[in-house]
């Protein structure tokens, strides 16, 4: 299990404005969602964690070692990141080759890379499409190819940037299964998202960013119960929680299963 520790983390693209403004927290073994309005600093944090950006002050410690001392290539072996738009990474003419690209880059041997790629494709339900050109697939399926290409790298930490965008119901359910499976394998799973229902369904811990600062950090249900915090961050509760609130119920529910269970009782 990987431990990520942010110590007085600061970052700015320009001298005038800080995008990350003194963050301190530890990401442990719980699956963690980072939420906040656009411009809150979520993607910048992800890029800092991946080593694509370097902190202007403070540091991120990965299992006790500062990411400042690690190159992007070194971090690629430890942190996998699924980018928002699959078109930003796909360049191979066959799905299998695309999924094998990452594992081969981080030094995996060909047989292991192929085995991992096939397993990853199976986990995103794309087995059978190995020889298909990714650009012949729809955007939602292409996105799953991008997810598989990161899963195949078998990193300790997996970071999803807006994974549910362009996904239909089946795709979202598949992603939820993947997150649960990764958790059961002891991996650290982090997501950056605007999809509150997705967060409520699978993420144990939620951190709220606003204007480059952490304004809430708790188990997911507790965070979604803090309406003032959500308002400050221009966020809303998950649908099920909104319904129970509108109905005037004392008890709040995070998922459909909890809600249905309460009705049945």
């Amino acid at each position, binding site marked *: 299990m990987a431990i990520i520790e942010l110590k007085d983390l600061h970052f700015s693209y320009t001298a005038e404005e800080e995008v990350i403004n003194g963050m301190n927290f530890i990401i442990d073994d719980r699956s963690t969602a980072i939420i906040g309005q656009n*411009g809150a600093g979520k993607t910048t944090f992800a890029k800092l964690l*991946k080593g694509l950006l370097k902190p202007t002050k403070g540091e991120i410690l990965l299992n006790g070692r500062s990411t400042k001392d690690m190159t992007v290539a070194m971090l690629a072996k430890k942190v*996998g990141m699924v980018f928002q738009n699959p078109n*930003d*990474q*796909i360049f191979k003419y066959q799905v299998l080759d695309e999924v094998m*690209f990452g594992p081969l*880059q981080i*030094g995996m041997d060909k047989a292991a890379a192929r085995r991992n790629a096939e397993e990853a494709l199976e986990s995103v339900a794309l087995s059978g499409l190995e020889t298909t050109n990714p650009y012949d697939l729809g955007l939602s399926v292409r996105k799953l190819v991008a997810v598989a290409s990161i899963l195949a790298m078998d990193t300790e930490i997996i970071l999803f940037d807006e994974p549910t965008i362009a996904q239909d119901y089946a795709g979202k359910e598949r992603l939820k299964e993947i997150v649960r499976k990764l958790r059961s394998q002891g991996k650290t799973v982090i997501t950056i998202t605007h999809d509150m229902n997705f967060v409520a369904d699978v993420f144990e811990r939620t951190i709220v960013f606003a204007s480059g600062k952490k304004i809430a950090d708790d188990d997911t249900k507790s965070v979604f119960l803090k309406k003032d915090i959500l308002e400050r961050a221009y966020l809303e509760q998950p649908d099920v929680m909104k319904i129970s609130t509108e109905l005037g119920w004392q008890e709040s529910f995070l998922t459909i299963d909890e809600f249905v269970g309460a009705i049945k009782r």
Partner: protein
Amino acid sequence: MKTISLYVDKGTILNKIAPESKIWYVIAAISIPALMGIRWAGIGMIAVSAVLLLYGKVLRRTLPFLGVSGFVLLTVLIIQGMFWWGNETPLFALGPAVFYVEGLRYALGILINIINILMSFCVLILTTKPSDMMENFVRRGFSPRFGYVFISVFQIIPQMTDTMSTITDAQRSRGMETEGSLAVRIKAFIPLIVPVIMSSLINTKERALALEVRGFNSRKKKTFLNEEVKTAADRYIQIALPVLILAAAIWRITQWLA
């Protein structure tokens, strides 16, 4: 916040001048030195453009354009300096490479022309709102397609830079090296360029559809969002610059005849 356009409103008089006046400036800046055939005319126009860019508070934004073309300009200097057909007088040598006065002088002429064209276009692009420029073209009877293509060319540069940066991040995240020796860069070329091309094709298709569904090809007379504003300065510029171009042409003809 990143901007997709090269234009920035700095509130200067250059931002207020009509796009047509600035288009006339570009035509004049390029054609006057070409018509006169004097190197100093090109240098003079570069100086005028620099002053305008400084006054428009966008001189610093010109530097990346000059930086990008710097490699090409250096190549021109080296190739012409060493291999121009009329090379006779050696100026200096760097090891086995001998540079000649004639070739360097010829390359200098090319350099001045390129910098002049770049800087005069910067005066237009960096101080003119793309939509104003497009409206100006359509008002003058050009097809909206022409106007759209024209502004797309200038929007596509920052957009592709942005896309390229994201794609580089995505591939580096998968452990690919993008910096280092020439061999490393060549190896990184395909993984970087294919997503850029594919994204551009997808974006172009989507943009075409988005324009189509909003009546871009409608044959009805279009209504313009903004009123056309023509200041007194615009009137003077639009008379003075064509007169200057004509004067340069007449001067050159008289030189021929003399």
